[in-house]
């Protein structure tokens, strides 16, 4: 996997086991504010990084428990970047855990019902999310980070560069490749649906 932020962050924020570190007193007010402000952001990032909806609440809770432990070391203007890195790392752990939990993994990875190719029929949110999960799962992690922040969270290129600690040009390059990957995945989906419909017809 290419140089994803989550991998690099694991050597910085949040690597040492929590049980082995002394814990600073929690700034309750700050933690509450951070949770309130960023819960949806964290939850969506976890989902796009491959955490099933059924596990996303618990994973989000874990992100903020890590934050409770480390927030005192995080500058206020880096809170979201910290949460993003933590979410990416926890999502990676979750995916590994899910692979061990075969039943859950089956649920995640088995071929879902094919969503319809038509825009109108995608009104079924559940099927749309299934397709979205598939598309995002196929995307390399370093590209997915940029895609999630830019296309879904509407973060500016400059802010993404600051968040991921990479040059602006690299953000642009990854975004282009991420879009290509996204569009190719959608195209593949259409081809599968078309083939299926043709076979049935």
């Amino acid at each position, binding site marked *: 996997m290419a140089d994803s932020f989550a991998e690099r962050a694991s050597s910085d924020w949040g690597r040492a086991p929590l049980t082995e570190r002394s814990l600073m007193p929690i700034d309750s007010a700050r933690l509450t504010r951070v949770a309130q402000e960023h819960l949806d952001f964290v939850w969506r990032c976890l989902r796009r990084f491959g955490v099933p909806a059924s596990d996303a609440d618990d994973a*989000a809770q874990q992100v903020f428990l890590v934050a409770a432990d480390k927030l005192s070391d995080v500058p206020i203007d880096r809170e979201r970047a910290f949460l993003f890195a933590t979410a990416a790392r926890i999502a990676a752990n979750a995916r590994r855990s899910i692979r061990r939990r075969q039943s859950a993994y089956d649920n995640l990875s088995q071929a879902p019902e094919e969503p319809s190719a038509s825009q109108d029929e995608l009104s079924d949110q559940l099927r749309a999310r299934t397709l979205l999960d598939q598309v995002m799962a196929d995307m390399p992690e370093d590209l997915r980070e940029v895609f999630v922040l830019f296309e879904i969270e509407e973060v500016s290129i400059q802010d993404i560069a600051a968040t991921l600690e990479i040059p602006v040009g690299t953000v642009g390059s990854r975004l282009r490749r991420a879009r290509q990957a996204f569009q190719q995945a959608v195209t593949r989906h259409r081809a599968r649906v078309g083939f299926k419909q043709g076979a049935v017809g």
Partner: protein
Amino acid sequence: MSEPTRLIDEASGDKLEASLVQVARSEGPSPEGRLRILAAIAGASAATDATGTAHAATGSKVAAKGMLSYVPWGVLGVVAVAVPTALWLGRGEEPKASSEQRATVAQSPAAATPEVSPLAPSEPGAPPPMALEGLPPLPTPAAASGAASGVKVQGSLADEVTQLQKAKLALKTGNGAQALTELNTYAQRFPRPTLGAEATVVRIEALRATGNAARAKSMAEGFLAQNPNSPYAARLRSLTGAR
């Protein structure tokens, strides 16, 4: 580099691609899940504040049950006991509620409004007398008088959850008036609510339960005007007919 146009904003873009991005943007924790997470975080914070360490207890099987297997339970320690979470999950005073009922509560809301005043007649177009999500509620006479009236003002998030539970329980048992009373108490105690949106939704439900559908709709429209993308938006529209 210049800011590229986002897929969802491209006029000639692929509709399916834009639709998927829109789906991703609209996702979020359920109202119930949101409350549960916030309550657990509050429990963690409170536990640590109380003990000076979050490592006091080892992972509790009780707390772990139903939670992610990969959670580092050591950190939960005392938190595991997260009273607010237990409350939310229906222990204690409240009979087991169905998931649907719990979801209703989660969406309920309250407090947003330090609205302690008697429910005013509904006036279409009138600004909703409530503090909305994302906006710091203005201190109200009711809130200011909280201490004088013997109501403890502003407690922890766990306290907020507990108070909202009382309103929920009243609604569940068909006592809308009592629910409104509990919500007014909530508004007094928490002039700057963390769960303001939830409290507002509960209040709207309570208004409907007391036969004040017009007022409920007016409040819902005020809420939706300021929070069009709230996770509660669809429910409020369905519930009240608000646009």
